């Protein structure tokens, strides 16, 4: 029998007992709906967690330090490294090499200096942090007042709301667009004859050897400078949750500008001990194009001889957690479908009993056992298909209800609404396919029972 005949006969047979087959189909749809609702809740929660974590900017980032620094930070690592004092330092060439690694989008130094903002004759102390342009993607900027930096070395500043309040308690937002003056310490290389140069020096600011004439001597001076900056924006919380550094930054400048201004950092003290005079970094933040490539980049940087840190391991266990969660949600969702399977078997066994004579007639006029079996399979499959469609619709409605419900709940707690339930297209296809497969499996027994009917017995005159 050809496919369309099979389908036509199956559908017309299903229509013969509309109520019974309808109820069975609804049973399947409830099963599919519960499976879909559960699985898409799992998907939604996973996406929510991933979104929040990606927004935190921690998952596409590798932190790089030199093994010379922070010894004792990782004892195991220290024991493996025989001579940490010979380990490479984070200097300009190392930074350049990292920039050229595959999948790396950005390598930025950690810049954190003390500074003062002068506004209206008052000075306000705070830590100045350099931000790369990519920080725009960070969730801290989701509710940015004003604008982000117009360029990587624009003479602009973004303030933390607390800090803005300190400057202007009445109207902190009014600062946007105004010009303020930043006072900071500039690092200047020390000329060999610095003692006689008579340049202004901060008392005690010069760090160097005890004997300036010695060849090993090296030093720099820190000079007070000012820079006019335009306030472009105000943010509520510090980007990256302040996790990257120890102290809380309150004044944010484009990172290239901070480098150009050559602000003196604490870490300059450390590098002065090393000698050699070149600029070195304490920490470099390497941003990776895709969180999945973090491990690869980390490996490459480790091979260069640096110590790296990322929160990749945290994502791994997170992924494991969601796999287990999906499994459990799937099992609970499948329970209803398992019950529906019994309903299909019941319905079809009833149909076989009722249609005994009809099956006998069909065999007498030329239907093979296979035709009869396929006909019942087609009926089971059709119920599965329609049940699947209906189930998707039902599951969709349930999911929408979950989203609306959580939305109301979050709103009551003054939190922004989140989609905790997401129905991905693959799940629609998979649910319908699964529903059909399960229905076909349920049809196995009734179909083979129908195929085995003896036409002679069924056609006996009553």
């Amino acid at each position, binding site marked *: *029998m*050809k496919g*369309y*005949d099979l389908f036509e*006969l199956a559908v*017309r047979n299903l229509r*013969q007992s509309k109520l019974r087959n309808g109820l069975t189909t609804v049973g399947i749809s409830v099963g599919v709906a519960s499976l879909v609702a559960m699985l898409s809740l799992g998907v939604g929660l996973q996406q929510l967690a991933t979104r929040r974590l990606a927004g935190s900017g921690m998952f596409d980032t590798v932190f790089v330090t030199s093994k010379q620094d922070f010894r004792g930070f990782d004892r195991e690592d220290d024991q493996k490294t025989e001579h940490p004092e010979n380990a490479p330092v984070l200097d300009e060439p190392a930074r350049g090499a990292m920039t050229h690694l595959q999948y790396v989008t950005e390598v930025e130094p950690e810049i954190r200096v003390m500074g003062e903002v002068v506004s209206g004759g008052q000075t306000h102390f705070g830590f100045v942090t350099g931000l790369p342009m990519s920080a725009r993607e960070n969730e801290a900027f989701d509710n940015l007042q004003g604008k982000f930096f117009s360029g990587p070395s624009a003479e602009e500043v973004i303030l933390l709301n607390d800090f803005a309040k300190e400057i202007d308690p009445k109207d902190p937002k009014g600062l946007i667009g105004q010009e303020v003056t930043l006072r900071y310490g500039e690092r200047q290389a020390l000329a060999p004859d610095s003692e006689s140069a008579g340049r202004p020096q901060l008392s005690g600011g010069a760090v160097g050897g005890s004997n300036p004439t010695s060849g090993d001597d090296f030093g720099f001076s820190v000079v007070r400078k000012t820079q006019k900056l335009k306030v472009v924006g105000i943010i509520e919380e510090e980007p990256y949750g302040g996790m990257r550094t120890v102290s809380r930054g309150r004044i944010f400048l484009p990172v290239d500008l901070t480098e150009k201004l050559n602000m003196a950092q604490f870490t300059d003290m450390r590098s002065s001990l090393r000698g050699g005079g070149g600029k070195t970094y304490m920490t470099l933040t390497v941003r990776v194009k895709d969180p999945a490539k973090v491990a690869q980049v980390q490996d490459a940087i480790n091979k260069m001889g640096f110590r790296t840190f990322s929160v990749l391991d945290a994502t791994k266990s997170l992924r494991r957690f969601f796999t287990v969660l999906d499994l459990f949600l799937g099992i609970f969702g499948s329970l209803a479908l398992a019950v529906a399977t019994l309903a299909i078997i019941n319905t079809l066994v009833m149909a076989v009993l009722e249609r005994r*004579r*009809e099956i*006998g*007639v*069909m*065999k*007498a*006029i*030329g*239907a*093979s*056992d*296979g*035709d009869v079996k396929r006909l019942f399979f087609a009926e089971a499959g059709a119920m599965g298909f329609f049940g699947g469609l209906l189930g998707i619709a039902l599951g969709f409605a349930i999911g929408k209800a979950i989203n609306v419900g959580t939305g109301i709940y979050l709103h009551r707690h003054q939190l922004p609404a989140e989609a905790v339930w997401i129905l991905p297209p693959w799940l629609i296809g998979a649910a319908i396919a699964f529903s059909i497969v399960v229905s076909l499996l349920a049809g196995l027994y009734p179909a083979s029972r129908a195929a085995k009917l003896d*036409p*002679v017995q069924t*056609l006996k*005159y*009553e």
Partner: protein
Amino acid sequence: MNSLPSSKPAPAVRTSDVCRYYPMGGGIIRAVDGISLTIERGEFVALLGQSGSGKSTLLNLLAGLDRPSSGSVMVQGRDLAKMSSEELAAYRRNDVGMVFQAFHLIPSMTITENVELPMRFAEVDRAERGERVRESLEQVGLGKRLEHRPSELSGGEQQRVSLARALANRPSLLLADEPTGNLDSRTGEDILNLIRDLSLSLGMTVVMVTHERALAERFAQRLVFLADGKLLSQEAVA
């Protein structure tokens, strides 16, 4: 059919010592017990006997609905006993048409759909079916109420539909099991007239089971008497 050109064509049906036993409560029932019978092509044969004589069982064996316990059933030179169940199904849909006492039409289907059903199993092209359904219904004298259900028709009309269904795949062998048993005598005669005419015009072999000797004598060419599963006697009708 598959015989050599020089020899005579194989008879429509030839059974050799065919038996069909059923186990029943410890013993066995010999429904058909060693019947050897030859039916020529185009012949109209009536199987007569009391109920339980084995005539319906023999008909089911010829139809390929049942398998012999021993012996052979050759139809146009092919041994049904050696066919697989798929081959038997193909034989039933292509070579045999069946008519029953209880009509056995599918109640949920219209007249047209009932006649079309065997064509679905035979995978007849869709475009061809409408024409063939009409042709079959014309052959049995039905042209109206084709979209009605069987229950809306009289017994005679239902038997005509069932006959049209039997003709749908243009069989060479028509098997009728008490085709007049549910009809009044007048309508029964009409149906048998129709069967005889079709047999003559289409060259179709007919085997009919009946217990009405008078009717059989009027329409069949040969009467075959069965009792207790055995062939009792045969007589040709003049």
